[in-house]
Each structure stands twice: as C-alpha cells, then as structure tokens.
C-alpha cells in the first residue's frame, strides 16, 4: 500500500533536513498514527505521500505508484484514488454541503447521475442527512469536518490521509470524528493520521509512528502517544 524507503527531504534555505533517512511500510487496511512535535516532519511526510512534494533522496511508493518518477500529468489520477482531510476542513464557503461534496466529483468528470446518487449516500454515512442544503458557515466544526470526510471518501478511496483532523475540535466532537474514521478504516480503507491528540492515540491502541527531528524514533503496533 505504502512503501517509503530511505527518504530524505531537504528544503531550500534550511540547514537541517525536514526528513532524514525515513523508511516506512504500511499494509492494506492499516491504521497508523503519525505523532511528534511540531516541526518533527509529520507534515512533510504527508506531503510526500500526497505527491505535493518529491523527496530529495529515497523512494516513495503509494497505491502502487512510484511518486518520485510519476509524470506530473498523472498526479491528478493518482490523487483520485486517495482521500484527504485537514485540520482546517478546506470547504468552499459559498457552496452548500451537498455542493461541496458534488464539486469534488464534478471536477474529476463524474456523471450527474452518479453524483446525485453518491452524494446523499455519503452524507448519510457521515451522519449529515438533512443538512445537505446548509452552508459551511451554518455548521459546527465537527459537522464541517464530517463534510470534509464525506468529500474525502465519496470516491471510495483505498487510502485516507488525515492531517490533524481533530486539531480544531473539542474533545467530545473529536471522539465522534474518530469513530467515523474508525468506521471508514473498518470498511477496508487504510488510514494514515497525523495528530497531536494524546487522548485519541492512547484510546485507540493502533500502530504509532513517532517522528523527531525528521527521523522515525518509534514504530509500535498497539502503542500509545
């Protein structure tokens, strides 16, 4: 599913590499927490897996694609096969909940028929039935993250990348979102989640990969923060 080997990433104008000789294997159906302080390299690693960046050294394979050698015109097609959520939701403020989800299907050229069927279904799945016509500004943070999750999984991706999805949410709402992400994982989607939330990591007892100063210092199955 994901195979990262001996990856280093050096950003221009910074003396210390953001990632230093990192290797990581993730199997299909895994649930992996990426933990570590700010600046430890979590986001850099996520960016490499999304092919928003290429490593300075090493190789990155995700969903069978070699992300170092992939031609840029094929990157969009690679990204269609995974879902992404962020701390700041990244919803379009002038579109309704349903339109936000539909937008991601329209821009990859799905048919209207497919969209009309898939959008209500995925909104039901994340518990937002009845809110399809609301604007993001009329929703709570937790509900907005549900919209983002709905958008990420509407294409039934094999991999979900979540970059601090609970970072802006209160503990109770975070639990709801985590329950949803767990359900997505149980349905067969591999989940990689970067987080600062100690409580969540400790409670779920999943695989924990800890980064410090751009290196992996712990890779523990059933670990805690």
């Amino acid at each position, binding site marked *: 599913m994901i195979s990262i080997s001996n990856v280093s990433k050096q950003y221009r104008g910074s003396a210390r590499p953001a990632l230093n000789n990192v290797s990581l294997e993730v199997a299909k159906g895994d649930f992996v927490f990426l933990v570590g302080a700010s600046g430890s390299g979590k986001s850099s690693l996520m960016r490499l897996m999304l092919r928003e960046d290429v490593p300075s050294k090493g190789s990155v394979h995700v969903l069978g694609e070699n992300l170092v050698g992939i031609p840029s015109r094929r990157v*969009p097609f*690679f990204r269609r096969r995974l879902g992404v959520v962020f701390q700041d939701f*990244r919803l*379009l403020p002038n579109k309704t909940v349903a339109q936000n989800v539909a937008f991601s299907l329209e*821009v*990859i*050229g799905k048919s209207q028929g497919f969209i009309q069927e898939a959008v209500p279904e995925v909104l039901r799945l994340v518990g937002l039935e009845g809110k399809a016509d609301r604007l993001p500004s009329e929703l709570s943070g937790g509900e907005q993250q549900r919209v983002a999750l709905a958008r990420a999984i509407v*294409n039934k991706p094999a991999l979900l990348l979540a970059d601090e999805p609970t970072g802006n949410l209160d503990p109770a709402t975070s639990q709801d979102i985590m329950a949803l992400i767990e359900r997505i994982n149980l349905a067969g989607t591999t989940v990689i989640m970067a987080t600062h939330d100690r409580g969540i990591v400790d409670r779920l007892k999943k695989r924990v990969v800890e980064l410090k100063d751009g290196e992996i210092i712990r890779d523990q199955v059933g670990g805690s923060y």
Partner: protein
Amino acid sequence: MKFVFSEVAQGFRRNLSMVVSVVLVTFISLTFVGTASLLQMQIGQMKNYWYDRAQVAVYMCSDVSATDVCPQGEASEDLKAAVKAKLESQTLSQYIDKYYFENHDQAYATFQEQFKGNAVAKYVTAKQLNETYWVKLKDSTKSQIITESFSGVAGVEEVRDQRSYLDQIFSILNAASLAAIGIATLMLFSAALLISTTIRLSAFSRRRELGIMRLVGASNFYIQLPFILEGVVAATIGSILAGGAVLAIVQFFVQGYLAERLPFTSFVGLTDGLLVVPVLIAAGIVLAALASGLAIRRYLRI
C-alpha cells in the same frame, strides 16, 4: 463540460473590468492590423493600376518656359519634328509601346477637365501649357532611357516620369501602414500582458477552489481550461469586433466615401475585407491561447 462553462461565466463576472479591457485592447489592436493589411492591399492594387498607365512626358518649350533651358522660346516645328524623329528611330522605338503628341489646345482641354471648378482653371491660357509628347513604354521601369535621350535636347523643357509622382504617394501610404503595424504590435503586446494579468487575478481569486480541485485530483486540463477559455473568449469577442470594424471601414469609408470622390481609382472592396477578417480572428485566438498558456504555466503550477 457544463462545469467548465459555468467556471468561465463566473470568471467573467468576477473580473468584468479586466475582461472588458482585454476585449477593447484586442479589438483596437486587431483593427489596426486589419486596416494596415488592407492599406497594403490597396497599395498593391494601385501600383498595378497606375504603373501600368504611367507614361513619360517629354515637355516641349513654351513661351513661358524659363530662358536658361529654352533660350529660343516656343519650340519650333523643326525642333518638334526632331523629337518625333528621335522617338521613331530604331534605338528608341524598340522600347516604346506607343506615343502621342498633345498640342496647346488639347493640353488646355485636359487641364480644364482635371481642374474643373478650381479657380486656377479660369486664369490659365492654352499658350501657358506645354506641348507634350506622351510616351508609353513597353516596360514602365525603363523610363531612364527616355529621360537620358531627351534631357538637354534643344526645344525640350523637361522629361518627367509619372512614376516619380506615384512613388512619392506610395511611400507615404507605405509609411502610414508601417506605422499602423507598429502601433498594432505594441497594442497586441499589451493585450497579451493584460490577458496574463487577468488570468493571474482570476487564479488568485479562485485559489481556494483550485487548491481543493488539486487535492481531489482534477486533471490539469480541467483546472486550466476555464482560464484559457476565459482569455480566448474575451480575445475572440475583441477580434470579431475588429473584423466588424474593418468591414465597416471598407464599406462605409472606402467604398462609400473615397470611391465616390475618387472615381478613377480602384479601391479595396468587401471581398478583400472578408479575406482579412478570418486572419484577424485567428490571430486573436492564437494570441490569447499563447498568452493564457504562458500565464497559466507561471501562476497555476499543479
């Protein structure tokens, strides 16, 4: 596709003033290009027409000629016969298509016709106008031969190739059309810059959507097409307006105004105009596509 068009429409609404300026700048610059090319066509047509008819005039001395070239005053019958003999001679006649003699009365009649209604027609007398041998050459570029044979010959006041008048007119017209092309080039350049700025603004105002489109895997083509279309549609509107303006100039100014006042000149017509219009539109579209393409490479890295 429906999505792409709604994006283009949205972009238009968002940057209406920029779009209008792109339309206007392409409109005006392409109108200049169109007018300049029509002027070139006109010059070509007039050259063909007039060079064909251009003659060499051998002006004989008259009573009012300057005494340093015509010390004997009015050219005598003998002197005129000598010129005629020279024109008929073996050496010259091989270059000459035909020639004819115009006496004082004929010259006066022609003059009266040419300057009809002009005050000068009242004061001129037949005696003041030169008697002239009008020589039509087989090859109008070889006027040098006549000029050299008759300059300084007794009784000849001046030898004049009509082409020298024409060349002056043509060089003025040519300069005008070059100036128009120069202005057009500058304006086309600014049109290209405007298009690229419009796209940059447009991309900036849509950066949130663009970020999301990238994340969910919209193809580069899908992301870029609305921007390219925005520039191309604006430029196409401008070039269609320019085409209309060029046709209007041909129809109402050239055919309606100039042709009526200068009946003996053949002017470019609507058929020539219709040749220019598709070129203008194609030029507008290509320009816009290039400018948008380059702008997108700079501001829309995927």
